[in-house]
């Protein structure tokens, strides 16, 4: 059993000791002598808690750090690690040929996310024994030996400011050997950005490139010109980089970058630097805030919202088939319950028959009962048709069935009208047809077709009005919801849904002045 399932097994047992609050099944397991493989029943509160606080990733990071640093006293080390605050900080390597804009992007990143900016030159500006040794080499015009360089980088990155706020390494590493030595030393980035642009563009750019001697900022005659007059004066006296030097640097870069790409294959992203630098920055920032696929165990709990005709039932069916999660349509659920001869069924039958809306309390009771059944808690669920308004949504939140993904399928009313009013069904075969998109195959079938009275234009307009009246308040309640354009063919919509369902949600930028996590 994996560590987490084992610890959950011990928890289950603890809960069983408190017999009046938990399932007696677990108690029977003790008395029974043979080990029947019962499915492990994890209370939904634990799963929600684990997802909300990202426990899996926390434990993973702790163990990863332990394995890299291998401290003698792991308990002390873990306390230190946890005390430092957020364990997840940005760790970025920014690579690319000269004149691709690394300095500009790195500076902007620091402004936006408070990370520490590290370059080959500012490492040497520290005042330590190692840097003094390195400077000696530089003074003699010699290359700094590889292992000394790696030690320097490691030392800089283990300082408290880098550990707390994260770092962006600009232009480091230059070669595959450097990259591998960094890995061995325990320096591993979360994201590697490789800026790319055609050589001609880079050469042209470098013609206008000027470096401020005091701050080290990079400016350009055409694209980035400083506003401060003092800076302008300083720059006017500088010269641009010579073309031959640049071509030589470019050749060297091309040789090395291929190997670097392979080293960081799983966290590297190439970004086209031949664009205005604001656009490049936006792309870089989005990538850095995105989270890689996590292997954390995750039960999907999806809410699908959308006007009638937006394809909720279809998408829900596709999702539930592909990922083996339970498909719950609120309307169908209510009808199924009323067909049973239970108390609840008798209660809601009159409402369904007369066409009135079933009271919220009953719907909620039925829904929570269904959602707490074993198949929903273990496999996950996708729900559509509920909640319809803010009140229902709030009650759902209170009942502790918090969705992990919320989608709003967006569509204009005229598309909705077109899609819904022309819907029909063949009562003999059960096939659904549409007068425009999927007409009946033969006149025989055409005569048989039946139209659902709910799909008439008058009813549809009423339903649409109701939907839009509630839509904005629902959207406010779920700020992390994803909006998908439903006015496309079903498979495109499904792909958009999938990409947001399976991947992790990107991190959002904190307000200035707070820590990253």
């Amino acid at each position, binding site marked *: 059993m994996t*560590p*987490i399932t*084992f*610890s*959950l*097994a*011990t*928890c289950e*047992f*603890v*809960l069983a*000791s*408190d*017999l009046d609050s938990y399932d007696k099944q677990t*108690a029977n*397991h*003790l*008395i029974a*002598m043979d080990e029947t493989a019962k499915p492990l029943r994890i209370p939904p*509160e*634990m799963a929600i*808690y*684990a997802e909300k*606080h990202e*426990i899996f990733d*926390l*434990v993973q990071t*702790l*163990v990863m750090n*332990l*394995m890299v640093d*291998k401290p003698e006293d*792991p*308990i*002390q080390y*873990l*306390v230190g690690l*946890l*005390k430092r*605050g957020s*364990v997840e900080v940005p760790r970025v390597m920014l690579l690319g040929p000269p004149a691709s804009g690394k300095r500009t992007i790195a500076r902007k990143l620091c402004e936006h996310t408070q990370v520490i900016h590290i370059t080959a030159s500012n490492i040497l500006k520290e005042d330590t024994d190692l840097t003094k040794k390195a400077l000696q080499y530089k003074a003699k015009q010699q290359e700094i030996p590889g292992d000394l360089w790696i030690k320097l980088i490691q030392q800089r990155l283990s300082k408290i400011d880098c550990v707390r706020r994260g770092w962006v390494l600009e232009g480091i590493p230059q070669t595959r050997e450097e990259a591998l030595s960094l890995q*061995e030393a325990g320096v591993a980035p979360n994201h590697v950005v490789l800026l790319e642009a055609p050589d001609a563009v880079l050469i042209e750019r470098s013609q206008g490139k000027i470096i401020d001697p005091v701050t080290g900022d990079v400016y350009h005659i055409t694209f980035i010109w400083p506003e401060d007059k003092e800076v302008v004066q300083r720059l006017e006296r500088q010269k641009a980089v010579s073309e031959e030097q640049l071509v030589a640097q470019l050749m060297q870069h091309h040789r090395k970058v291929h190997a670097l790409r392979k080293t960081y294959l799983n966290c590297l992203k190439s970004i086209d630097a031949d664009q205005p630098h604001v656009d490049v920055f936006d792309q870089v920032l989005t990538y850095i805030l995105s989270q890689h696929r996590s292997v954390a165990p995750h039960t999907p709990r999806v809410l699908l919202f959308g006007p009638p005709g937006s394809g909720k039932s279809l998408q829900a069916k596709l999702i539930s088939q592909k990922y083996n999660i339970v498909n719950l349509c609120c309307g169908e659920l209510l009808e199924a319950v009323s067909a049973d001869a239970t108390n609840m069924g008798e209660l809601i039958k009159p409402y369904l028959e007369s066409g009135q809306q079933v009271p919220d309390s009953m719907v909620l009771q039925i829904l929570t009962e269904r959602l707490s059944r074993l198949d929903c808690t273990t496999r996950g669920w996708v729900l559509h048709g509920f909640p319809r308004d803010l009140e229902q949504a709030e009650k759902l939140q209170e009942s502790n069935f918090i969705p992990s993904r919320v989608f709003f399928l967006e569509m204009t009313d005229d598309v909705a009208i077109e899609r819904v009013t022309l819907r029909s069904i063949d009562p003999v075969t059960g096939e659904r047809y549409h007068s425009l998109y999927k007409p009946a195959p033969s006149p025989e079938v055409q005569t048989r077709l039946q139209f659902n009275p709910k799909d008439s234009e008058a009813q549809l307009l009423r339903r649409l009005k109701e939907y839009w009246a509630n839509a904005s308040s629902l959207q406010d309640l779920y700020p992390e919801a994803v909006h998908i354009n439903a006015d496309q063919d079903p498979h495109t919509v499904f792909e958009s849904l999938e990409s947001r369902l399976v991947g992790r949600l990107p991190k959002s930028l904190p307000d200035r002045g707070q820590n990253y996590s």
Partner: protein
Amino acid sequence: MATPREQEAADYLRKHKIIELMDNLTSMLFFYRPERPNEFLITQLEQLRVSKMRSLDCPSLFNDTNLDAVLGILDPTKQGHITFVQYKEALTTLGIEKFNECPEGVAKDKISQETFKREAKEGLQRSSATFISK
């Protein structure tokens, strides 16, 4: 074939019983579900450290009332003792891997409640005190 670094890492994990430590910590987290997991973990780790220094009781998920509840399940008629098979099952379910296979009373297959509680407590201490190397 594991590289030397992989071997080192695996040895380190085994020597300091990191997996067991993480197990215990995550169990605590899921049971108590604190609002601030980082602080909770710090408290647990500090307690562990203190108990290591002063050989006190380690924090564990199970306490006396839990053990009494277990005995209640196993011995509903309150005879005062349980069978050896029950004893083994119970200790395994509690998560104790290495327990005393020959506790007092095994000859008559009647393990008294006190013996069970004592063995269980010792076993639990051993699982929580992951810092003690084999």
